[in-house]
């Protein structure tokens, strides 16, 4: 099962991308809870691409889903935007109280917390982010 979807890097594409991710997770027999976590990770990654990849022009983002081995869903998110390695962003200060708590940084934190492996490479002018999402029982 390898499936791919390529759409404009805009918020309007979210519905279709997330529906695709959810059905991929469900096809692999993931629980509704884990599928929701995978949806959340996919949304956070995609929104980062929408917000940062193409500052000067429009562009597309391609999402590929495949089963790697029983119980693991691999998501590959590819864009032709400016170089961006999401792993380089630091974690938010989780201990800060309401006055000091910053609004940024959470998306990446969720991606890290809920994914089982994160790989990034830059190849031929493309950012390729690979996430391994295990079923987690």
């Amino acid at each position: 099962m390898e499936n791919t979807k390529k759409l404009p890097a805009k918020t309007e594409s979210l519905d279709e991308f997330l529906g695709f991710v959810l059905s991929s997770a469900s096809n692999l027999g993931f629980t509704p809870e884990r599928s929701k976590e995978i949806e959340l990770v996919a949304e956070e990654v995609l929104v980062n691409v929408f917000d940062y990849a193409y500052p000067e022009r429009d562009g597309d983002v391609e999402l590929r889903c495949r089963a790697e081995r029983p119980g693991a869903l691999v998501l590959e998110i590819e864009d032709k935007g400016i170089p961006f390695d999401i792993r380089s962003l630091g974690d938010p200060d989780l201990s800060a109280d309401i006055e000091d708590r910053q609004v940024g940084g959470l998306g990446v934190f969720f991606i890290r917390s809920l994914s089982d492996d994160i790989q990034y490479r830059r190849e031929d002018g493309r950012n390729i982010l690979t996430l391994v999402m295990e079923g987690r029982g």
Partner: protein
Amino acid sequence: MEIEKKGVDKDAVLLSVKGRIDERTARQFDKQMAELINNGGSCFIVNLSEVDYINSAGLRSILISSKKLQLKAGRIFLANLQESVKQVFQISGFDSIIPIFDSMEDALAVL
């Protein structure tokens, strides 16, 4: 995503939110909350029993409302979180800065 005002109890404004608070609905959430906060009241108790999904954009929105209310010496309390939503609050540490209750009654009891 809908926010409905359900009433006032012990000077707390009771709200109920339905749907997802995510990338697509966060701005609408911010706008509606800002109006409700401007209309009066400094203590808000929000029923999230019908919210089945929240992401970082949603948490951001709740934090923004929380900061706004703090400026009025007010607070926001959340109640009836679904498990997946509660997990998002726990992972992010938001459960230690925004009071979360198992029911609206429990939230009212601390006022």
